[in-house]
């Protein structure tokens, strides 16, 4: 077949697969059978099953609303049964004889019972009212009426399905309620298989080319130059991240697709993170294959691509599933603090502590990794050992993101912004960790009047979700593939400091051979103006360089070489261009 035809065919298959994937949310009905539902519910909530099983089958996008209605219905029943009813409160207030000063602990206890749950909650909410001066009794009455809701909320949390559990319950119920035919693995195979097959067919023309540099038409291509196809990809990616993080239940049918795989790997049901991890790995596989084809003949690129893929499959995707199966904390062993920003969070530390020597090992490993492993390996090999050989974010950037690498901004201005932003994130991450550790050790959640939990959740939202996810990946088609690594990753900042000041790694410039063509700078995903250095005969020693090696690959004159050598001569701020006698004056 002709190259053009193959490319169109591949793209069509891929688009079909993506369309089917997303349409599962709209066209496939979710329904609840009594036994499925009740097996998921806690003993005390079994009553919910009756209500849920009356819900009519509906497509996934309508189901969360229907479920929330059912939960409300159920909770009303619970309140009726266990809560304070309006007339009950009325009675109680009447008993006070319009005298607010009669309101005290014993009055409550005698009315609601001494050790009752209601009594406790009621007092928790109203004890501040005891012995106060009230302008009149009505004011007192209104206050107490206001508190009724809080008490009943507590009742719902205790006996029914509290608001805090509802999101998770919607997702769990919907994944279970997804139709059985989706859960056989066949549809997963068809949908994901079609997407991958589409990709591979699309790559055949690339395969037909000889080994070499394949950058023809990149800047003629609408999808790679921020035109409408790129905008579509951008919207889809960002949308996917928003749904994944904030509305995962709309993806219940898609999650259900992976049920057999998840059960085989971890023994548990799939959730949105399993779906994400699977798709992430699959995308890396497909686009990694493209990398392997594109850089046939360049061993550095090939070995590096195999390496990131290996770490993704083995460490990021499989190992945590196995650990889960062994009922150990699921932990990605290659993910180092501060990228793994929750490493020192109290619940993580509890997890390590509860798992005996293995938990201790996991904790020790993480500490050794960031405190010794990272600086030592960076000293010997540069930051690249992590960022473009091991890291999952880097791995996605280097495979899925490769078609967008030229979109990074190379201006001096953007370098300035980069240094401010990325180092601020590092400082933020360090402070947050210190705060959280302080809380964990002292049990005091406030430091300098700021709550460590709010610091943590701010970080989680802005850095974890917005920056690393939505912007980091979603912005590939508009700002290049390393937006997160360049501007946001605290680990990259840390590695970068080591690389800049104490490392054997550099990109050597080959004497006077540079012709200032600009290929190196154009294809630098980190936005380094490589040419600036190369054309002055200067080695490139930059904290942001992730050592992807593409500048060296695309250089048509053989000017650049990534190497690890002794430190002297690495940094030459006043380079002399080889080629003529007499020294250039450096002022």
């Amino acid at each position: 077949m002709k190259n053009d035809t193959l490319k169109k065919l591949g793209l069509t298959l891929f688009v079909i697969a993506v369309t089917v994937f997303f349409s599962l949310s709209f066209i496939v009905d979710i329904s609840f059978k009594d036994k499925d539902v009740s097996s998921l519910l806690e003993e005390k909530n079994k009553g919910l099953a009756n209500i849920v099983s009356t819900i009519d089958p509906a497509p996934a996008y309508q189901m969360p609303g229907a479920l929330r209605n059912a939960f409300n219905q159920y909770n009303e029943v619970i309140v009726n049964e266990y809560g304070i009813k309006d007339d009950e409160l009325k009675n109680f207030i009447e008993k006070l004889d319009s005298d607010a000063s009669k309101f005290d602990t014993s009055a409550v206890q005698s009315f609601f019972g001494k050790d009752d749950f209601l009594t406790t909650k009621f007092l928790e909410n109203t004890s501040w009212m005891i012995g106060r001066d009230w302008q009149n009794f009505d004011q007192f009455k209104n206050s107490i009426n206001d508190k009724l809701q809080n008490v009943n909320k507590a009742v719902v949390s205790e006996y029914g399905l509290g608001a805090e559990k509802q999101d998770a319950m919607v997702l769990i119920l919907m994944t279970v309620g997804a139709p059985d035919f989706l859960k056989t693995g066949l549809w997963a195979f068809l949908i994901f298989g079609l997407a991958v097959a589409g990709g591979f067919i699309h790559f055949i023309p690339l395969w037909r080319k000889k080994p070499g540099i394949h950058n023809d038409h990149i800047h003629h291509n609408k999808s790679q130059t921020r035109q409408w196809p790129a905008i579509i990809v951008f919207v889809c990616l960002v949308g996917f991240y928003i749904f994944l993080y904030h509305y995962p239940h709309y993806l219940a049918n898609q999650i259900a697709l992976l049920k057999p795989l998840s059960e085989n790997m971890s023994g548990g049901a799939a959730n949105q993170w399993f779906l994400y991890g699977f798709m992430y790995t699959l995308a890396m596989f497909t686009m990694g294959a493209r990398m392997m084809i594109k850089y046939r003949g360049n061993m550095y690129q090939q070995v590096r691509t195999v390496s990131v893929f290996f770490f993704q499959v083995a460490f990021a995707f499989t190992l945590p599933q196995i650990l889960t199966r062994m009922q150990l904390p699921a932990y990605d062993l290659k993910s180092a603090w501060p990228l793994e920003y929750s490493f020192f969070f109290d619940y993580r530390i509890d997890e390590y502590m509860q798992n005996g020597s293995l938990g201790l090992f996991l904790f020790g490993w993480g500490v050794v990794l960031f405190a010794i492993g990272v600086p030592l390996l960076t000293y010997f090999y540069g930051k690249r050992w992590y960022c473009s050989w091991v890291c999952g974010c880097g791995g996605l950037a280097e495979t899925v993101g490769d078609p967008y690498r030229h979109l990074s901004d190379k201006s001096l201005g953007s370098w300035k912004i980069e240094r401010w932003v990325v180092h601020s994130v590092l400082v933020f991450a360090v402070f947050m960790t210190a705060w959280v550790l302080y809380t964990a050790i002292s049990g005091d959640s406030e430091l300098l009047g700021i709550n460590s939990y709010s610091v943590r959740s701010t970080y989680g939202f802005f850095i974890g979700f917005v920056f690393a996810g939505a912007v980091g990946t979603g912005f590939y088609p508009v700002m290049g593939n390393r937006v997160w690594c360049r501007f946001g990753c605290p680990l990259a900042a840390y590695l970068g400091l080591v690389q800049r000041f104490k490392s054997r790694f550099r990109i050597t410039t080959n004497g006077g051979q540079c012709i200032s063509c600009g290929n190196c700078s154009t294809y630098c995903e980190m936005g380094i103006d490589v040419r600036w250095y190369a054309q002055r005969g200067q080695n490139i020693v930059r904290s942001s360089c992730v050592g992807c090696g593409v500048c060296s690959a695309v250089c048509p004159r053989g000017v650049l070489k990534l190497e690890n050598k002794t430190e002297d001569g690495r940094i030459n701020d006043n380079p002399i261009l080889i080629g003529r006698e007499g020294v250039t004056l450096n002022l």
Partner: protein
Amino acid sequence: MRIENILNKIAYFRCEHDEHMAHGTVIIGNGIAGITAAREMRKISDERIQVISIETPYFFSRTALMYVYMGHMKFEHTKPYENWFWEKNRIELVQALVEKVNPEKNELLLSTGEQIKYDKLLIATGSKTQYFDWKGLDYKGVQGLYSFQDLEKLEANTPKPFQKDHPTKKAIIVGAGLIGVELAEMLNTRDIEVTMLVREGAFWNGVLTPSEAAEIGHHIESHGIKLMFESELDEVLADDSGKVRAVRTKKNEELECQLVGITTGVKPNIDFLKNTGIESDKGILVDEYLETNIPNIYAAGDCAQMREASSGRKPVEAVWYVGRMMGEVAGANLAGKKTAYKPGPWFNSAKFFDIEYQTYGNVMAKPEDKQEQYFWKVKDKNKFMTIAWQKETNVFLGINTFGIRLRHEYFNNVLKKKMTVGEVIGGMRIANFDTEFYSKWDKALKNDFTSETGIEIREPNMLQKLLQR
């Protein structure tokens, strides 16, 4: 030095607000030679610097024109400095054509009619395509490839990227040199059938050795380019509307085509200097300080011709590196720091489709008396090299390398030290500049070299220490 700078700054400041403002230095041409000179000058002095050039408002890398056409880069990417750079360094850029130079009045006449005075002048006007007097060069679809305007012309003469219905389907490229190959590669990306007319019997055989020329020829053909050896252009033929329809060769063959690329070399762009008293031959004649026969007028880059070339070098060397090195020297001299242009050992590089080429020292296409050459190829790979040395003394003369990257610093050193070929090959592991994880070839080279030439390899320990820092 510092005080001088400050005084200069004050003088500059005064001048700017003075009726009798100093004219400072004017540079004609914003190519690598002119721009390097301006930057070098600015490092040393605070005088006023104006750069007048017609082609583009800002300096760009001519060597990257092909990548713009092929879509590897946008034109924007070929500019080595951001636009703010010039104002910050007080290098004034003027986009205009200089029509005349009047050395008696220290004055330039621009095409706008404006006259510009100078105290010192640097001519760095580069080259232009060399056309021979073939018939039919005026037809639409005949062009060279040198300037930004040539690139625009090529865009107009050929299909847009991915465009199917364009009349230009076949192209003839006349002349097989570096620019010819680049043009062939460019046209290939727009699905145009390319035939190259090569006057000689092998590809670029004035520079490459016969074995190399054969290898490169095969490689170019493997990309679907047709090479017609011993073919010369006689005439370009056009249809009624004046559009190219074919060329006729000296052997009277008629070859259909809609585009004719003339890449038979370049020549210094100095016509506008006629009758100015500035001496020229092929290029503007300059002494070792790059000064012309008229004091305070200098020339650098492609347009300059050394009155006396240093050994192993040619009087006119139209390459990027020479433009840059001459620019450094010219800049220093213009700033009053007398500096002689003394090029070191020759080096150059290029790329033929997928095969990178580097050269250090001198490897003759046909070895001169008392010179030996050894051609070596990695089996089944597009990786090969030719090593040249002096017969009796075994002194290393140079190397051409293809598909293998080598270290400039290493060869610059060994050539200057006149080391023997055995020593040079002995250090090939250090000289290797290939990407990490590429398979090592130096052992095989050493074995083959010794067994075929009988020359002993000497591992240079001292050198190793010196270089493998």
